[in-house]
């Protein structure tokens, strides 16, 4: 079927070439047959008009894009610094559209207006220091503003205040999955190194380190709303990148070093699911999935699950064949729910003991969820 489609497209393109060539040839009617390969007045006229039409095409396409795809853009930010990023983005975008609209118009309009004609004389205009100064100084001023605003927000996002009340969480990346480790009561992550990976200790936590005793490893990330979370990020094998688009957060995971990113979640998952834009988005996606499911079922395959919104952690640095499917669910809870959820998780030490117990008689008939979370891990002590 697709082969047929491709064949059709190619055939249509062939026809299009032929027709376009004919159109250009027809525009030559009336002028003497000209095969010099150099543009004549008629070519200039036709292409001048087309150039003017092209700026129209750019405008219309831009407007169409915003109408048709504007709602694809990430909506309400879910972190404290998110609105800052978004407003800087909006300012930059406004500036871009302003400059784009004007310069593209001038460029194409001049092409149309001054398209070559017999007897038209070009102006010998080689230099003008005032003009040059204008379009040097205006960008300097505008960019100074952007640079200062940008650096202000950047410093705000990237530097964590020593005295702040923060929670440390380790993000651990490996081909092709994520894990997370909570620092526990002492809010200090125990030391860890990939050389210590053994059995259920998949994060290579140093179990001798007292700080690691109360650490808890999980495979679904829960965060309490309103608390600054400092992520200490490690990788086990190759470069990965911890991308949390809804929080406007991203940091690479580098084997051999610990990287850091911090933010305050401000919207719980439950609240976000009620967000107007998210509701619209989810409805749209479910419509698409329903339509796809009908086709799948007709082919005798399984229908797609319906989609509910969740925050996600994606890998955003090429990391291997299954890079496209390296994700972890993030849940933002109220502080109480978060505490309750975390309290149920075993510590890494506990998991290690259970797994290496002499009599593995009743090895965890525990709920499935816990079994998944036996990915016990510990990371380095902060600083």
């Amino acid at each position: 079927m697709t082969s047929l489609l491709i064949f059709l497209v190619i055939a249509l393109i062939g026809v299009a070439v032929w027709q376009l060539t004919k159109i250009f040839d027809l525009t030559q009617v009336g002028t003497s047959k000209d095969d010099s390969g150099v543009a004549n007045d008629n070519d200039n006229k036709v292409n001048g008009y087309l150039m003017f039409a092209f700026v129209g095409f750019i405008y219309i396409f831009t407007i169409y894009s915003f109408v048709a795809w504007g709602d694809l853009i990430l909506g309400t930010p879910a972190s404290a610094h998110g609105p800052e990023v978004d407003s800087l983005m909006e300012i930059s975008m406004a500036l871009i559209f302003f400059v784009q609209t004007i310069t593209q118009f001038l460029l194409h309009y001049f092409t149309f207006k001054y398209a070559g004609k017999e007897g038209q004389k070009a102006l010998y205009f080689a230099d003008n220091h005032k003009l040059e100064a204008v379009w040097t100084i205006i960008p300097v001023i505008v960019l100074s503003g952007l640079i200062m605003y940008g650096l202000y927000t950047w410093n705000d996002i990237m530097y964590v205040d020593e005295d702040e009340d923060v929670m440390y969480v380790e993000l651990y990346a490996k081909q092709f999955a994520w894990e997370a480790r909570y620092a526990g009561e002492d809010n200090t992550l125990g030391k860890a190194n990939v050389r210590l990976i053994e059995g259920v200790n998949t994060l290579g936590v140093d179990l001798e380190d007292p700080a690691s005793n109360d650490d808890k490893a999980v495979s679904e990330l829960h965060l309490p709303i309103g608390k600054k979370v400092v992520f200490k990020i490690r990788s086990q094998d190759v470069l990965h990148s911890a991308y949390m688009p809804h929080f406007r957060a991203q940091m690479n995971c580098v084997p051999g070093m610990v990287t850091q990113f911090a933010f305050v979640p401000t919207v719980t998952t439950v609240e976000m699911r009620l967000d107007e834009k998210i509701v619209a988005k989810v409805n749209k996606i479910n419509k698409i999935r329903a339509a796809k499911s009908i086709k799948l079922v007709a082919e005798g395959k399984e229908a797609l699950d319906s989609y509910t919104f969740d925050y996600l952690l994606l890998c955003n640095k090429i990391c291997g064949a299954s890079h496209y499917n390296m994700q972890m669910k993030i849940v933002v809870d109220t502080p109480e729910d978060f505490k309750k959820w975390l309290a149920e998780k075993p510590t890494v030490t506990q998991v290690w003991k259970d797994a290496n117990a002499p009599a593995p008689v009743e090895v965890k008939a525990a709920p499935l969820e816990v079994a998944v979370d036996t990915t016990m891990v510990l990371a380095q002590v902060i600083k």
Partner: protein
Amino acid sequence: MSAHEHGHHKETFITKYIFSIDHKMIAKQYLITGMLMGIIGVAMSIFFRMQIAWPEESFEIFKIFLGEDYAPGGVMKNDIYLALVTIHGTIMVFFVLTAGLSGTFSNLLIPLQIGARDMASGFMNMISYWMFFISSVIMIASLFVESGPASAGWTIYPPLSALPQAIPGSGTGMTLWLVSMAIFIASSLMGSLNYVVTVINLRTKGMTMTRLPLTVWAFFVTAIIGIISFPVLFSAALLLIFDRSFGTSFFLSDIFIAGEVLHYQGGSPVLFEHLFWFLGHPEVYIVILPAMGLVSEIMASSSRKPIFGYRAMIASIIAIAFLSTIVWGHHMFISGMNPFLGSVFTFTTLLIAIPSAVKAFNWITTLWKGNLQLNTAMLFSIGFVSTFITGGLTGIILGDSTLDINVHDTYFVIAHFHLVMGISALYGFFAGVYHWYPKMFGRMLNKTLGYVHFWVTVVCAYGVFFPMHFIGMAGLPRRYYTNSEFPLFDELADVNVLITMFAIIGATFQIAFFWNIFYSMFYGKKATQNPWRSTTLEWTTPVEHLHGNWPGEIPEVYRWPYDYSKPGHDEDFVPQTVPMKDGEEELHH
């Protein structure tokens, strides 16, 4: 007028067409090799675009071109998708837009426009081309390796590129990639040295630096940044070879993969990123500056007007070149390097917008009150300015570390760099080919085919890359084999189909270009000596090529290259070889 009559040694087929030391022949060799590599690079992009639009579907065309190993049953494998992305990037950036563009036009135009008989070292020039050819062959050979070609992205970040356990393409495929690139760098350095020496030493009488056409200025400055930055990539490649083959730990540390701990300790992938982007960023200017030079020259000649702000144009070329070497860190804002460094690189990066703005406004002003001859070359030059603006403007988002956090490595980045350096440089290349084809092959191209090629290409290029901004801002990461693992991205599927449609149509229409080039080579109308009525020296040479360029003495130069429509002259152009009239004033002197 042949070379024999000019008193040169007798030329055989081999010395004339294969191991030629004539810069004009070497330019043609670069052109054709670059174009052939271009076909492969573009075809790959169509293949992976098809996979994105119709994920995991079976295509006959994959069965034919990718085979059972890479696409069992016509369905592309996920690591082969990454291999295609990697080799597409490598081929387009280095083999097409560096060697194909700069190699072709630096070789053709430097000696002709400065009034030299050939490059400073014709022999080194020949070696430079043949090393490029060998590196192309090795790169293509890597496509046929059993474990697949290099698949770690064109930026080949270790550890992924260092460990075959991490991805199959990092085995033999990666070895061949590194060997090919090492040879490519050697070729590029020899070429660049030759260009610099030639421009400095071999200018004809009267050809001062401020009488050089902007093309030559652009090639000259490009060669200098190539000489500064390419050796750093060479070192990075060398150290990576050491890590891969001899167990050193320059870039690797603390790795647990495939169930075992590797011995590496103390290295840092971030070091590699610094070394890579120390070339990688200047590289995009190595690609775009020659295109800017070509476009400036074509715009002046086709507007029948002097280029506006000649000195500002030179100053901005130099400013861009200088800044290009101190902005590489904007590729690494979230690499884990110190955030203070991010601040510094944001500052230097956004500064580049200033000389870029100067150039864009100068081009637009050049059109103002001109008498525009809308040949295909001119259309592509205007197209260049258009995409350079559209793509360049989003640079103020990506160059801003704060905003980069959220759009880094998404489709927004793909949209940005394809428009600003991919498509723009390609337009510069097309413009150059359409404009100097008569000089290269002594024949004219078919203008109707040229117009069709231009109009379809500009619409499709916009159709491909403009929508990518939106899916990027939706948070879609690049280099995903399929987006179907994320229900969140289901709503982007239609956009991806549209993009792929535009890509297929745009790529297919490049046939018009190739047909025009190869057909006109033999059957095109014979060109006159100066078909575009330009002022520069290359149009004073005879149509038939001869080794040594001018049959008699090398002409002397009396004026700058942009005396178009100068008052007080009958013609609307005054060649550089025409002496100044009594009382005539020269600008800039």
